C-alpha cells in the first residue's frame, strides 16, 4: 500500500434497515464486491473492486443498495484533475498503457446537442404520421450515373447490389469474443425482425447465426479472423474494417484467455492463442491496395454483395472518403471519435480522431463537390444516442447510422466502461458462461426491437413536423438544421446557419 494506494472510486451504500442478507448481490457480482460475514450475519463489501455496473442495485429486492461516487478526493486542482493524477499513479505502479472501454467520456463538444431541427408553420403543413404515410425505408449502395434503355426503349432496371433497411439505422460491428453469444443472438434476431442489419465485427460468424445472413454485415478486418468463402457469402454485405473511431490507427488484441471454445472455432485460431489484429491490413498500404481488396471480395462473391469500407474519422477524412468512393466500394462507414470499444488504450481513445458530426458534414460536402455523392452511400456512427441524433445525421447528409452503445444499453449495459475485464455482470461483454446466461436473447431481442420501434416513431414525428414524408427528402437537407452556440467556422464546416438566421 502506501504510495501505491488509490482510494476506491465508488462507495457501496447499504441501508442496513432494508438489507435482508439474501445474498443476491453477492451472487450477482462477478467482481466479488459483496460477501456475507457469517460472524456478524451481515453483508459487507469491498468497494475497491466495484465498477459501478449497477447490477447489485438493480437486483436488490429491497432496494437496500446504492453506489455513489466516493467523496474522498485529492485536493482540488483544475489543471491536475483527480483522474489525471490517479492515472499517473497507476502508470507509475504498473509501467503499462492505460486501457479503457466504451466511448470517450471526456467533456468534448457534442455537436448533435448544438443543432436544432426545424418544423413547418403556416407556409406549409406539418403532417400527422398516424394519418399520412411516412417512409423510412432506405437503400444503401452505389447508384448508376446514367440510366440505360434496351432496344425497345424500356428502362434497364438492373442496379448494383443494394442493402435494404426498413429504417436508417444498423447495429454496428461488435465481435463475437468482445461480446457474448447471447448478445450476438439478440442483435441478429432483432435486426431480422426490424428489417435492418447487424454486424459481426472481426470475430467471424458463429455457425448458429448463418441463418440470419440476410440481416448480417460480415466484417473483414486486419486479422482476417473467421474469413472464408462461406462467411463472405453468408452476409448481405461485406465490410472492410480499416479503422475504428475509438482507436484510429490502432489494431486490436483479444487475449488468449478469451480465445476458448466457440470463440476460437469462430475466429478460426487455436484455443489460448492471442488474437492480434494489426494496425494496418498488411495487404493495404495505400488506396490502390484497398481497391484490390474491394474487387477481390467482389470477385469472391460474384458482385452480388455491396462492399462497405469502414474508417475512423480522422483529420483528412474528406480526402480519404473521396478515395474510398473511387475505389469501387459501395458504402463508406465513418466512425467518430466518441465511438465505443471493448478495449482501447485510454490515451488513444481520448485524443485521436475527430467528432463524427464534423466528419460527416465534411465528407458529404466533399463528395458532392466532386459530383460522386450518388456513387456511394454514407453510414456514420460514433455515438448516435437517440432518434434526434439520427434525424440530424440524415439531414447533414448520412444515408444511415450505425449504433452500438445504444443497442448494448438496450440489452442491459450500464456503461460502467470496464468491458476489458471480461466480467460483465450483464452478460454482454463476457465469455463466462455463468454471466452470459444472464442475458436472455428472447428478452434482449425484444428490447432492441422496442428501442428501434420507439426511434422509428420519433423519426416519423420529426419528419411529419418538417412536412417530409419520406426519409430520402431529409437526406442532406441541411436547411432543416440550425446551430446554436457555435462559431462561424463550426457552422461553416457543418454547412448550416445559426438559429435565428
Amino acid at each position, binding site marked *: 500500500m502506501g504510495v501505491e494506494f488509490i482510494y476506491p472510486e465508488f462507495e457501496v451504500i447499504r441501508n442496513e434497515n432494508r438489507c435482508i442478507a439474501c445474498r443476491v448481490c453477492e451472487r450477482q457480482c462477478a467482481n466479488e464486491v459483496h460477501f456475507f460475514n457469517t460472524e456478524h450475519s451481515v453483508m459487507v463489501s469491498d468497494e475497491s473492486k466495484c465498477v459501478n455496473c449497477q447490477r447489485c442495485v438493480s437486483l436488490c429486492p429491497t432496494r437496500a443498495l446504492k453506489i455513489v461516487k466516493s467523496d474522498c478526493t485529492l485536493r482540488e486542482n483544475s489543471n491536475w484533475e483527480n483522474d489525471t493524477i490517479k492515472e499517473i499513479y497507476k502508470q507509475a505502479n504498473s509501467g503499462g498503457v492505460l486501457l479503457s472501454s466504451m466511448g470517450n467520456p471526456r467533456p468534448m463538444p457534442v455537436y448533435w446537442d448544438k443543432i436544432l431541427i426545424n418544423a413547418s408553420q403556416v407556409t406549409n403543413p406539418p403532417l400527422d404520421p398516424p394519418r399520412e404515410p411516412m417512409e423510412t425505408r432506405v437503400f444503401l449502395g452505389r447508384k448508376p450515373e446514367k440510366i440505360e434503355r434496351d432496344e425497345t426503349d424500356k428502362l434497364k432496371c438492373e442496379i448494383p447490389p443494394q442493402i435494404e433497411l426498413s429504417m436508417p439505422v444498423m447495429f454496428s460491428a461488435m465481435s463475437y469474443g468482445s461480446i457474448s453469444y447471447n448478445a450476438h443472438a439478440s442483435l441478429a434476431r432483432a435486426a431480422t425482425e426490424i428489417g435492418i442489419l447487424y454486424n459481426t465485427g472481426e470475430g467471424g460468424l458463429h455457425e448458429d447465426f448463418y441463418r440470419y445472413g440476410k440481416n448480417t454485415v460480415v466484417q473483414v478486418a486486419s486479422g482476417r479472423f473467421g474469413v472464408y468463402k462461406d462467411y463472405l457469402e453468408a452476409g448481405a454485405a461485406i465490410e472492410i474494417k480499416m479503422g475504428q473511431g475509438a482507436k484510429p490507427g490502432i489494431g486490436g488484441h483479444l487475449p488468449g484467455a478469451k480465445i476458448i471454445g466457440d470463440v476460437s472455432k469462430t475466429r478460426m485460431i487455436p484455443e489460448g492463442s492471442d488474437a492480434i489484429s494489426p494496425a494496418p491490413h498488411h495487404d493495404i498500404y495505400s488506396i490502390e491496395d484497398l481497391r484490390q481488396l474491394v474487387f477481390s471480395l467482389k470477385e469472391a462473391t460474384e458482385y452480388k454483395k455491396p462492399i462497405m469500407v469502414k474508417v475512423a474519422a480522422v483529420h483528412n477524412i474528406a480526402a480519404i472518403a473521396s478515395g474510398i468512393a473511387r475505389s469501387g466500394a459501395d458504402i463508406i462507414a465513418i466512425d467518430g471519435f466518441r465511438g465505443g470499444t471493448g478495449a482501447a488504450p485510454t490515451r488513444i481513445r481520448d485524443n485521436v480522431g475527430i467528432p463524427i458530426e464534423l466528419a460527416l458534414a465534411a465528407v458529404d460536402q466533399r463528395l458532392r463537390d466532386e459530383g460522386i455523392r*450518388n456513387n456511394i452511400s454514407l453510414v456514420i456512427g460514433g455515438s448516435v444516442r437517440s432518434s434526434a441524433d439520427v434525424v440530424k445525421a440524415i439531414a447533414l447528409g448520412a444515408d444511415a447510422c450505425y449504433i452500438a452503445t445504444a443497442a448494448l444499453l438496450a440489452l442491459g449495459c450500464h456503461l460502467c466502461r470496464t468491458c476489458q475485464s471480461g466480467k460483465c455482470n450483464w452478460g454482454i461483454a463476457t465469455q463466462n458462461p455463468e454471466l452470459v446466461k444472464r442475458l436472455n436473447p428472447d428478452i434482449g431481442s425484444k428490447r432492441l426491437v422496442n428501442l428501434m420501434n420507439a426511434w422509428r416513431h420519433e423519426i416519423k414525428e420529426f419528419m411529419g413536423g418538417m412536412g417530409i414524408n419520406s426519409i430520402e427528402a431529409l437526406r*442532406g*437537407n441541411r436547411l432543416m438544421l440550425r446551430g446554436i452556440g457555435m462559431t462561424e467556422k463550426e457552422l461553416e464546416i457543418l454547412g448550416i446557419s445559426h438559429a435565428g438566421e
Partner: protein
Amino acid sequence: MKSEGQVRIPSGCAIAAVISKEGNKMSGEMITNAMKPMHDRSNGLGGGFAGYGIYPDYKDLYALHMFFDERATRKNCEAFLKERFEIVKSEIIPTRKIPSVTDEPIIWRYFVSPLKSVLAALQLDEKEFMVRTVTKINTEMKGAYVFSSGKNMGTFKAVGFPEDVGVFYRLEEYEGYSWTAHGRYPTNTPGWWGGAHPFTLLDYSVVHNGEISSYDSNRRFIEMFGYKCTLQTDTEVITYIMDYLLRVQKLTLGETASVIAAPFWSTIGTKKDEEDKKKHIFLRTVFSNLLITGPFSIVLGFNGGIMALNDRLKLRSMVVGEKNDKIFVASEEAAIRTMEPDAENIWAPAGGEPVIIHVKKGAY
C-alpha cells in the same frame, strides 16, 4: 434585408395554364384574365407568364429574355454574347406604362444561334452549351439576368399582380398554342423581377404553387451536376430537376413524375404488373434524392406540351378542365371558368398523378 438569392424565400401562389391540343393559337389575353379571380392568391410581389409558339418567325433561334440593371451592363453582356452567338435580332421587349407596375429594369430580348466553332471547341451539344451560358451569365454577371432561353417560347415576368403584368407586357399582342401563368405570394422578399415566375431553362418553364420540404436535399443533389441554385426558390430547383431528368437522363415525362412525386413504397409493393413494379423500385432507388416532398402543384411547360403534377399527398389545390381542343389547369376552378365558362369534365388529379398533354405532331 437580404436580396433574393442570399436567402431562401418560401411563397404561396396561384397557377394557371391552357393548351390547345390542335396547336390553335390563343392570344395572351385569356391567360391574363384567368389570374383575376385568383387575385388573393398573390400579394403583388410577382407575376409572370410563359407562352409557347409565340415566335414563329424565329422558331429555330434561342430567344433570350433578359433584365439589366443599367446600360453598361447590357453593353458588357452583349459583348459576351457576341463571342458565343450569332445575334440575329436584338430589341427592347415592348411594354406598356401602367401605374401598377413600376421600377422596371432594362428588359431586352435577343434571338441567337450558338456559333458552331464555339460548340466544336467546347465539345458540347447546343442545349448543354445554352444551359452553361445561361448559368454563367446568371451567376457571374452582376446586374444581368436571363429569364427565358428557349426556342419559339418566351417568359414575361415582373413585380406586380399577374393580371397587371400581362397588361404591362402587352400579352394580347402575342399568339401561342399554350400559356402558363403564375401569381406569387412570397413571404419575405423585397420583390425582385428576376425572382418572379415562371422559372425557365431552355424551353422548360415551371410555375409552381407550394413550399417543398425537400428543398435543400434536392438542391444539394442537383448542384452536383453543374446547376447553381442562385435564387433559392422551389421553382428554380424544380426546373433544374426537370431539365436533368428529361434532357440529361432522358427519362420520359411519366418516369420523371414517378421520380419527383414517387408512389409510396406500400403502393409499389401492391402493384400487380411486375415490370411496372420493377421500374418504380428502380426509379425511387436511383433518384431517391430527387423525390420532392411537401406541398406543390406545378405546371411544366415545354415545346409541344405541358405536364401538370401535384405532390403525392395532394397538399395543394389544382384542377383540370377541358373544352374542345383545349385543356385548362388552374389552382382554382374559377380561373378555368374565366378562360372557358363552359369548360367540361372538371376534375382534381390525384396526388402524384401527372396530367400530360401533347400538342398534335406537326401542329407546333
